């Protein structure tokens, strides 16, 4: 079983959604080295899943496992913030967006 379970909610083929998918796949490749499961959900096709997870924005990345669950919205263009959302960086609000 994968250590990381990630869900990415997107809206169809919009540029933001496509960018988020590309950015996330790259980061996962680099940082998680296959130790993850990535589920991509198109809210237009499966709105009920978005309802169940109470998703408002797209793209939304939900790190479901390991706990605690965390959410990141946007096209995931800032790698450091993605790592923060995946708990691969120390959780410190001061460090948001700061290069290390």
């Amino acid at each position, binding site marked *: 079983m994968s250590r990381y379970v990630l869900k990415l909610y997107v809206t169809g083929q919009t540029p933001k959604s496509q960018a988020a998918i590309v950015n996330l796949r790259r980061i996962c490749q680099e940082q998680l080295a296959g130790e993850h499961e990535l589920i991509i959900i198109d809210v237009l096709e499966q*709105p009920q899943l978005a309802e169940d997870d109470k*998703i408002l924005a797209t793209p939304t990345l939900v790190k479901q496992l390991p706990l605690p669950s965390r959410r990141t919205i946007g096209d995931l263009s800032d790698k450091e913030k993605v790592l923060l959302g995946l708990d691969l960086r120390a959780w410190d609000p001061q460090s948001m967006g700061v290069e290390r």
Partner: protein
Amino acid sequence: MNRDKETCELEKLPTGIKGLDLTSYGGLPKGRTTLVSGTVGSGKTILAVQFLAGGIKDAGERGVFVTCEETPTDIRTNMLSLGWDIQQWEDEGKWAFVDASRYPGTEAIENGPYDLGAFLARIEHAVAKLGATRVSVDSLGAIFSQFSDAGTVRRELFRIAVALKRLGVTAVMTTERTEEYGDIARHGVEEFVADNVVLMRNVLDQEKRRRTIEVLKLRGTGHQSGEWPFTVLPAKGIVIVPLSAIEATRKSSTVRVTSGNAELDAMCSGGFFRDFIILVSGATGTGKTLIVTHFVGTAAATGERCLLYAFEENHEQLLRNANGWGVDLEKLEKAGNLRIVCAYPESAGLERHFLSIRDAVEEFKPTRIAVDSLSALEHVATDKSFREFIVGLTLFIKHHGITGMFTSTTPMLMGGMSATEAHVSTIADSIILLRYAEMFGEVRRGLAVLKMRGSTHDKNIREIQVDGMGMHIGRPFQGITGILSGRPRHISRDQIDRASSPSTQEELARTP
């Protein structure tokens, strides 16, 4: 192209709030979105829920409730007290929530541009799944608080408004205002749902809360303007007091009815007219309740249905006093011809008193109503609200064509005006004044008919006596003047003769 269709009024959808349908001439424009804006605690959520509840209960329409502030659980619980079992409607497939409220742990890190595509997809999904024709979104401000980029949220909400229009649903969106009399809404949301705007207010005026609702605009269709007071009642929700919205059109009656006192009837040339509003004004102890007792007692004894609202005395006191005047109100009550409602003026706001009277009139269907005293309600609300209340009440009573009698206690023993009189006197068809008059070290009581629409009346100020059979109107006061103004003054026989003599004016003119 069909020309008729162009000029045709927009179709409207009843809201489930009777008074709002009245002021908006039929409800909210069908297939459009209406912005409901108000300060905290102004009743926006209740209106949003009631809009859907009205659709479910009155029109068999289904509704989607998009909640962005309270959780569905909270709304289900809160609305149960207003008589709406949302859970049951959900089970029956008539109601669905889209839950956009905040939960701990769902705060998101913002990383690059985003939209609210998931939110829109969820709303569309719920509408389609349920076959809903009504949507309530409560409230837009709460969505802004969940995201840092207000520009994106505004653009996305616009997209949602457009989508709702495309779906053909009639929607209500609530939003916050920071001031009762200021910008329509925060975050500039009125820019994208500006077709129809309803404002709700909860104003603190002279230590009294005054809730009002105003239809600001309904694009392409008419509505009544101005603020309408409302109250929130258990099992009913928002109830708007449709004060002057009651049509004043009615036929004047030429049928005379008794005042309950033969001598007073004689002073009025044969009694009041059936649709009269009578104001009885006097200081405390001058005999107002006595006149009311005759007014309802005599009529009820002949089989008329009479409703008495007492704000000054309790039930026992009323019955005891009436017994002292030879009127057995208890018997009339038991016979079902008389209903007495005793209430403390402070027990409720004016809106509730109005609705209580309205409900009683509609249910009991009296031919007469008496309110003793109306002035007791003066201090329950602000002067403005009180005036609206009186106008609303008199119009309502006239609308039903029943005879109404209001009493008003003057603030000073010897006369003077109260706010009640100031507001009622122009509406009242007949005014009866009761005044104290001091004569030779003795306090006497006098009665005068000041006004009697559509009829002549006795212009004398007559002395009244009260005994075990009630009130007796006697001879006019003689040798005294200034009773009405509260400054009685004795005058000699000689002065009276001079004043009434035709040569007086000439004599005065000749005097150097």
